[in-house]
């Protein structure tokens, strides 16, 4: 039982890590608390639902279309919502509020078009596999492999490639980057499109597993944000670790109490972290204000 819950928790955590890494990449480089990331998460899986279940396109083509549109929408959100606010020198709180406004708009559009009820993407009982005493569904195994590969590739890419180094440079000092002759706007496009695709992959995997409704994005985003805070703002490895830890912890909450208290525990953890260790588990001790500069 414990092993089963641990396995479920780690797989959930890996799925969180995709949302969290996308969110983290955007948050660290642009300093924008991208609330609308949650609505992009929802939108992406609904696009997939439209192409795959309603238009009956083949699986790979539906994936390709929905993720491409997601990437474009990610860039559009940045250009239409955040860039004008940054030009106006609005604070991060205002960007966060605008993002919240956009979240409301997108999610309610989805609810208006598709309805509020839960929709199933892959009907029927999924084939399961037994590994030792642990039973996993096919989607869970798929989630495990894809999330692990994507997260690992992403972290290696950040460490080694030139663009990855630029992204880390933008995290540390955006102004210095433009002095070096690197246009921050191009990096913003990259960050928003790739971040959105990561959210899309996670939402489609999760949708295949448990179905979709218009409100799934909020909790996905908040779990991702909590993972970022657990790991420490500015540290990508920490975000990954935080997501896996969070998934495992939530699974253990089911073991000790019941699934109903998952959110209570998650957000109590967030409050405790914000109060006592705002730099996260891997972060160096510094003032919160500095870490946000």
């Amino acid at each position, binding site marked *: 039982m414990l092993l089963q819950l641990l396995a479920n928790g780690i797989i959930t955590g890996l799925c969180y890590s995709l949302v969290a890494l996308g969110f983290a990449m955007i948050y660290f480089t642009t300093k924008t608390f991208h609330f609308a990331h949650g609505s992009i998460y929802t939108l992406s899986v609904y696009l997939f639902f439209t192409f795959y279940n309603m238009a009956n396109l083949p699986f790979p083509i539906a994936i390709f279309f929905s993720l491409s549109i997601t990437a474009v929408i990610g860039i559009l959100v940045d250009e239409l919502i955040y860039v004008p606010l940054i030009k106006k020198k609005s604070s991060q709180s*205002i960007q966060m509020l605008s993002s919240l406004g956009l979240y409301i708009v997108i999610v309610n559009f989805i609810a208006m078009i598709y309805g509020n009820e839960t929709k199933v993407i892959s009907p029927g009982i999924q084939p399961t596999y037994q590994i030792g005493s642990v039973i996993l569904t096919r989607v869970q195994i798929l989630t495990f492999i894809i999330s692990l590969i994507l997260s690992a590739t992403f972290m290696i890419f950040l460490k080694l490639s030139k663009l990855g180094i630029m992204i880390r440079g933008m995290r540390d000092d955006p102004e210095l980057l433009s002095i070096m002759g690197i246009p921050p706007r191009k990096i913003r496009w990259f960050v928003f499109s790739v971040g959105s695709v990561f959210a899309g992959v996670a939402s489609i995997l999760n949708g295949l597993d448990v179905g979709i409704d218009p409100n799934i994005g909020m909790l996905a985003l908040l779990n991702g944000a909590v993972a970022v805070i657990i790991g420490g703002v500015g540290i990508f490895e920490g975000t990954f670790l935080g997501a896996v830890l969070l998934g495992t912890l939530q699974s253990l909450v089911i073991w000790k109490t019941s699934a109903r208290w998952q959110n209570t525990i998650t957000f109590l953890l967030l409050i405790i972290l914000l109060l006592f260790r705002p730099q996260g588990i891997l972060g160096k001790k510094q003032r919160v204000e500095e870490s946000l500069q």
Partner: protein
Amino acid sequence: MNYFFHILIMINIYMILALSLNIPVGYTGLLSLSHASFYGVGAYISTLLMMKLGIGFIPSLLFSIFGSVLLGLVISIPSLRLKGDYFMLSTLAFQIVTFTILYNWVSLTRGPYGIPGIPAPQFFGIIIDTIPSFLIFSSAVASICLYLLYILGKSPFGRLLKAIREDELSAMSLGKNTVKFKITSFAISAGFAAIPGVLFAGYMTYIDPTSFTLEESIFILSIIIIGGSGNFLGPVLGTIFMILLPEILRFLALPDSIIANMRQIIYGFLIILLLRFRPQGIKGEYKFQ
């Protein structure tokens, strides 16, 4: 006629909510996403005291204000350390924790089943059990609250909160304990938010946790973003506008299933547009920056 009275009662309830949130947001400059938790805790404390312990309306109203102030003190502790979006994130976390507790502590709050049959407000031999009488009662309560909040805004205390909003360092250098004032403003706001909670419970005679969600907090905050904050008129106009908006949509003969989403889409758009082009809202004083 009762339909018209119903709208006026809702305006009364939300006006107290908006003007009480105006104190931390508009005066002190602390963006809070936990106002619905005070509203809900107010409603639940008074309801439970009246129904489980048989305490009268007025004492349970006072207890619920007291409980809400205590919760406000607990939530505002992060303001000692956190700024900007971190502060907002911590109020959001508290909002979700409060909601999940109301939702999951089934033995006390009956959780998702809600509490039906809440007794009508009753004091000094008067029972408020019809819609017209409830309109008079809620208007009286709202007038008292609005008057108190108006006085508070004009007082030296209100001016000091504005000073903290504009330039916290200057306020500190004048020897003011800004942390203490921030916490006080938050706690006062929480206390006032409990009153509409009690009104709501008595009016609806039924409460369940879904009235006090994060979405509700965002709605109350959007009232004062849209109406404007930092003065008295902004939140008042915001409330009237936001409560009338779905009724206007209904007159346009839109089906009910679309109205709920349509209303949210409109206010989401309004938040984005106002923050960008008119950060003081319709008639506010404080420009969100």
